[in-house]
């Protein structure tokens, strides 16, 4: 469908590919600035009144049509990903709002040190910008997405007040907080893009159903179909959903001229544009750039450095959980609230030369989601079948909490996104192929975190401690595959997200990350996208007619 001001085929000022976290932010800024914006999105609008949490079989739906693994979901708008050579499964959602439809909406920021890892720790590269340069855009994004949180965190620089108070941490959150304190470790309530009070257009407060990993019926969880897109459309942006881009086209000078795409009927169309913004995530963007070969760009668009698709970073995740003797009688024996984003600890975030690894990790608290989730192994192994089944579920149900470990994955050129020579999507376009190896440094981070996580669970009073040393289905954060930098030989885009090779192509998703920090990346992705949008609006008025 087309959500638009009724415009038909024409040359847009700016074509945005992808309607997720970053594409929506750019669309809203540029539309407000009077640019003629068209966005092509391969997925569709979602109806929050039909999300799975309203259905009794929501648990099954979370494994099938609402799975966050596109290979499992297998919808026509998803593209397959060959994972034969990756221990991590990338997860995402294709639709208006992108992966913010199924994210948990955790909204931490990078630390100032995250932008200077080469200078401080002698690894990877520094970013071509600083935390201070990005801070105003973080603040703007917090206002539009709606951030619930509280100032005073000793683990992060002081910042502007959030527009909403934090979500309650619950009795289990307090239990974990006290355990952190008993060990002398940092903790702080998580910043969330989840409403703690009604905020935004038609968006209610969270009612603590727990499933912030699924679409939000309350519209309390911020997704860009609810935040940026209503603004963008009101200001005249045109959003064409169900339209899959097959190639970014170039003109005789080798500059971006628009995109070829398959419309909802599978017919090949062309959208002309004076500038193109890539917002397809750290896998989708390199895939599309690599598909866009031409005489001027034989290695793929913006790829004279050969770095498009290289330096793929995830956040390797481990989990340490505990089962406790008590539970919460006020909620049918369940600790309730969001399943994640409750509180976090950054005690081991910064590099410590006493450790055998560089950089660090964040602990993020998680809580359980009911009997089916417990039986399927939400916190530990799947409950055994047979005579021990009932005893195991009864023992674990409503009595588990834990911490996910999010470690900083450093960029390595052998971790790549390429085009699969065999697999195709439903339009006949090449699937993405991932090659990824967990680095020794990342493994040491996780092992350190597991050892400390056991201490934490003991301090909290766990009767049983369970560890998952490496969660396979954890590739939410897709970063580094079109990195930014000042040197065209060692980066794909400049500090403004503008391709070195062609000045009217921009990248605004996680692809541009130089390093990945040890926190969820979306606020940083969106802040960078807003910064690029401001650059286009003020410095690239030549794109505007």
């Amino acid at each position: 469908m087309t959500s638009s001001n009724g415009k038909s085929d024409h040359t847009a000022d700016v074509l945005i590919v992808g309607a997720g976290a970053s594409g929506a932010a750019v669309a809203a800024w540029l539309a407000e600035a009077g640019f003629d914006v068209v966005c092509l999105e391969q997925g569709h609008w979602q109806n929050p009144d039909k999300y799975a949490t309203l259905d009794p079989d929501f648990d099954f739906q979370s494994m099938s049509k609402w799975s966050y693994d596109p290979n499992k979901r297998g919808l026509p708008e998803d593209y397959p990903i060959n994972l034969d050579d990756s221990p991590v499964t990338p997860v995402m959602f294709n639709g208006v709002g992108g992966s913010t439809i199924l994210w948990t909406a955790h909204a931490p920021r990078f630390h100032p040190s995250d932008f200077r890892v080469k200078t401080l720790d002698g690894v990877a590269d520094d970013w071509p910008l600083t935390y201070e340069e990005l801070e105003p855009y973080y603040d703007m994004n917090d206002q539009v997405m709606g951030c619930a949180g509280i100032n005073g965190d000793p683990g992060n620089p002081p910042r502007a007040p959030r527009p909403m108070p934090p979500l309650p941490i619950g009795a289990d959150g307090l239990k974990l907080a006290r355990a952190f304190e008993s060990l002398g470790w940092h903790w702080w309530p998580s910043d969330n893009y989840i409403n703690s009070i009604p905020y935004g257009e038609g968006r209610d407060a969270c009612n603590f159903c727990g499933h912030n990993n699924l679409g939000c019926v309350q519209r309390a969880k911020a997704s860009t179909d609810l935040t940026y897109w209503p603004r963008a459309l009101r200001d005249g942006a045109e959003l064409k959903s169900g339209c899959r881009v097959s190639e970014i086209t170039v003109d005789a000078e080798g500059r971006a001229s628009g995109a070829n795409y398959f419309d909802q009927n599978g017919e090949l169309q062309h959208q002309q544009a004076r500038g193109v913004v890539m917002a397809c995530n750290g896998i989708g963007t390199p895939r599309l750039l690599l598909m866009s070969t031409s005489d001027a760009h034989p290695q793929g668009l913006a790829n004279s450095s050969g770095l498009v698709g290289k330096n793929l970073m995830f956040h390797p995740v481990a989990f340490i959980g505990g089962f406790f003797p008590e539970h919460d009688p006020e909620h049918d024996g369940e600790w309730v609230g969001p399943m994640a984003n409750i509180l976090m600890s950054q005690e081991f975030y910064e590099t410590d030369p006493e450790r055998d690894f560089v950089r660090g990790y964040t602990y993020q608290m998680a809580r359980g989601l009911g009997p089916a989730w417990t039986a399927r192994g939400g916190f530990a192994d799947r409950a055994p079948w047979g005579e021990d089944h009932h005893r195991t579920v009864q023992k674990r149900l409503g009595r588990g909490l834990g911490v996910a470990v999010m470690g900083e994955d450093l960029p390595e050129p052998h971790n790549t996104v390429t085009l699969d020579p065999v697999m195709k999507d439903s339009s006949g376009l090449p699937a993405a192929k991932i090659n990824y190896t967990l680095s020794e440094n990342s493994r040491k981070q996780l092992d350190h975190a597991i050892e400390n996580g056991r201490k934490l669970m003991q301090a909290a009073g766990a009767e049983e401690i369970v560890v998952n040393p490496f969660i396979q289905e954890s590739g939410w954060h897709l970063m580094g595959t079109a990195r930014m930098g000042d040197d065209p030989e060692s980066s794909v885009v400049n500090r403004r997200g503008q391709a070195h090779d062609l000045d009217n192509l921009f990248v605004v998703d996680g692809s541009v990350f130089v390093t990945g920090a040890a926190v969820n990346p979306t606020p940083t992705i969106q802040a960078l996208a807003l910064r690029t949008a401001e650059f286009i609006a003020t410095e690239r008025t030549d794109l505007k007619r």
Partner: protein
Amino acid sequence: MSTDLSLLSAALDRVVPAIGDLPGAGAMGLAEVIVENARQDRRFETALKTVADALPDDFASLDPAAQDDALRNIESAQGEAFGLFLDITYSFYYMRPEVHERLNWHGRAPQPEGNELPPFDDSVLEIARQRAPLWRKV
């Protein structure tokens, strides 16, 4: 897909056995529900067929220990399919009101009711606020 529901029911009764007044998952009538829902997703449909096809023809008449041996053999040989079989079984078993009642569970979809929690209590930060800054200045 054509699945022998009686065989599958017998297997489900061993996977999630009877407890107290509750019958096993098979006697509860879950086989038909699982087969029907697996049709929505090729991964589950294939897994269910793999497990069902691997059950011995005389599975229903075997004694419980022999039934468990047969299931363990399938689990060992077809691990991924068996895991999906367990996932879909657990998912629909724990949807049943009588199971919720036994677990003293509220037994409803997460929405639209949700849950109630008191607002954030700032006093929980009393100790955490006393910590000196630990982020690195650049």
